[in-house]
């Protein structure tokens, strides 16, 4: 399973756009890229998933370049409630359950 590297922490202010980049140089052909959000003492919550190019949903966008060796999670106009840890993961198929979490990126949104 591909290993991911992302910044340990990031700070932002309310109303700003936040971009968190994740590198996954060894991503396999059939791997998807998935981002989860986790608040303290809660389980991770799915944010977005993609395979290539751009994916957008009601809470975020995911940008994946053609070589798929990195991806960028974009959170538009963050609020204080977006303060959380964000994890980037790769790997899918019958291995869905065996996700490899790194340390994640702790996003602190300030007023």
């Amino acid at each position, binding site marked *: 399973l591909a290993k991911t590297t992302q910044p340990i922490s990031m700070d932002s202010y309310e109303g700003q756009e936040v971009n968190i980049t994740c590198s996954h140089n060894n991503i396999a052909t059939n791997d*998807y890229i*998935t981002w989860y959000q986790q608040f303290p*003492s*809660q*389980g*991770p*919550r*799915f944010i977005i*998933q993609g395979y290539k190019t751009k994916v957008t949903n009601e809470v975020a966008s995911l940008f994946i370049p053609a070589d798929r060796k990195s991806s960028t999670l974009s959170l538009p106009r963050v609020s204080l409630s977006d303060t959380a840890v964000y*994890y980037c993961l790769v790997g*899918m*198929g*019958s*291995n*869905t*359950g*065996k*996700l*490899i*979490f*790194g*340390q*994640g990126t702790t996003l602190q949104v300030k007023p």
Partner: protein
Amino acid sequence: DAGVTQSPTHLIKTRGQQVTLRCSPKSGHDTVSWYQQALGQGPQFIFQYYEEEERQRGNFPDRFSGHQFPNYSSELNVNALLLGDSALYLCASSLWWTNEKLFFGSGTQLSVL
């Protein structure tokens, strides 16, 4: 439609004891995975159950064992507890043979004294 439910929410044990944690998957899901999350770390995969069999296992000792029941619910058992077993234990459910995302429960906070 209930999501993933775990019980108990908190548990305190002493070294050497045994513990059983329980998980009910999201309605319609047939696969359960267990994760251990130490404070300040990302979740670490323990094992995965499908059709009442352990399908994949992470790097955890045999003290960690599990079971899946015909109704897809699952248990995680830990024997001979160590202080280092103190962690948040997360259950996640999914559908086998799909690319569907994992749904996580809120976890069981285990403290070993």
